[in-house]
């Protein structure tokens, strides 16, 4: 019995000990795995859309581009709002890391406001498009009969993203309540939940960057 080698077993393992993930907590590795699979869900939708574009002779109709049917200016504003909310999110994480409770609360609130603004713009856009005649199954806009799958593609992809923004706003609100109680500004790794919601929120922003380009601009 060699007891001299038993000493390390008493040592409590910390995230810093992990050779492969360094300072990453279990929560962070888990969130990244979720993001990776969620990214593939979006990838599947965009892939189907891409193949449809290759098959289609005209998208959405002869002499019409997606930029002629969809409101690019308004969506560009929504895109910028989402980018700004990503910046406020990194500021919230930074404030939590430095144990600044009121700053964390303020930046989280601004991030939620950005998410709600984005959803408001999307609701306005959907209402406008449906009134013009673009629905999941039908598309007769500006006197043109659109590709039968244009509406379905548009609403499914942007709707799936909108559902993510909605989930993100709810998630952020839950974290905001915790932040108001000072749960994430107690030093050490207590800021971790703010970082995790941040990862999800930036992912939603990242996906929108791709959706905006592929669905609206291409």
């Amino acid at each position, binding site marked *: 019995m060699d007891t001299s080698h038993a000493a390390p077993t008493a040592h409590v393992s910390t995230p810093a000990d992990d050779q492969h993930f360094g*300072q990453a907590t279990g929560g962070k590795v888990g969130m990244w795995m979720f993001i990776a699979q969620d990214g593939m869900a979006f990838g599947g939708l965009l892939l189907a859309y891409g193949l449809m574009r290759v098959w289609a002779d005209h998208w959405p109709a002869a002499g019409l581009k997606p930029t002629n049917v969809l409101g690019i200016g308004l969506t560009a504003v929504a895109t910028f709002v989402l980018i700004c909310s990503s910046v406020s999110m990194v500021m919230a994480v930074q404030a939590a890391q430095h144990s600044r409770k009121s700053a964390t609360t303020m930046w989280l609130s601004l991030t939620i406001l950005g998410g709600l603004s984005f959803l408001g713009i999307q609701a306005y856009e959907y209402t406008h498009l449906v009134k013009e005649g673009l629905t999941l199954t039908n598309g007769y806009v500006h006197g043109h009969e659109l590709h039968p799958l244009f509406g379905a593609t548009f609403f499914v992809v942007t709707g799936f993203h909108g559902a993510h923004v909605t989930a993100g706003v709810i998630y952020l609100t839950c974290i905001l309540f915790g932040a108001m109680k000072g749960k994430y500004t107690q030093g050490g790794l207590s800021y971790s939940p703010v970082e995790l919601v941040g990862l999800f929120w*930036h992912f939603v922003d990242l996906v929108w960057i791709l959706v905006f380009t592929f669905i609206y*601009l291409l």
Partner: protein
Amino acid sequence: MSAAPHTPSHDPHAAPAGAHGGHAAPHGHPTTSTFITIWLVLGFLTIVELAVPQVYDAEWNRHTKWVLLVILAVSKATLVGLYFMHLKWERPWLKYIALLPAYMGVAAVLLMCEEAWRGTVM
């Protein structure tokens, strides 16, 4: 480029973060100015993105438009991943997990090339 003291210093904005945490600290956090810079770059790239469909509006130059827009979108997404999602400061294994969905991009290119080719022969 000739004045660059270190080989990985392709990004001038990483310098203040590196100075803050030191080279030996992979978790050295970026500063507020890093985030503001990335924010401005993202805003600028969005404006460029909006201009591209206006400039390359014709049928004959649509491929240039597609390539430019995809490059711009991937660049923006990479900036968000590297800086906002802190991937730049994470260990390789976390980066590999994050890269998994990029496989969809490879699949997309392969499938679309195949479909386009099939379209020419059928």
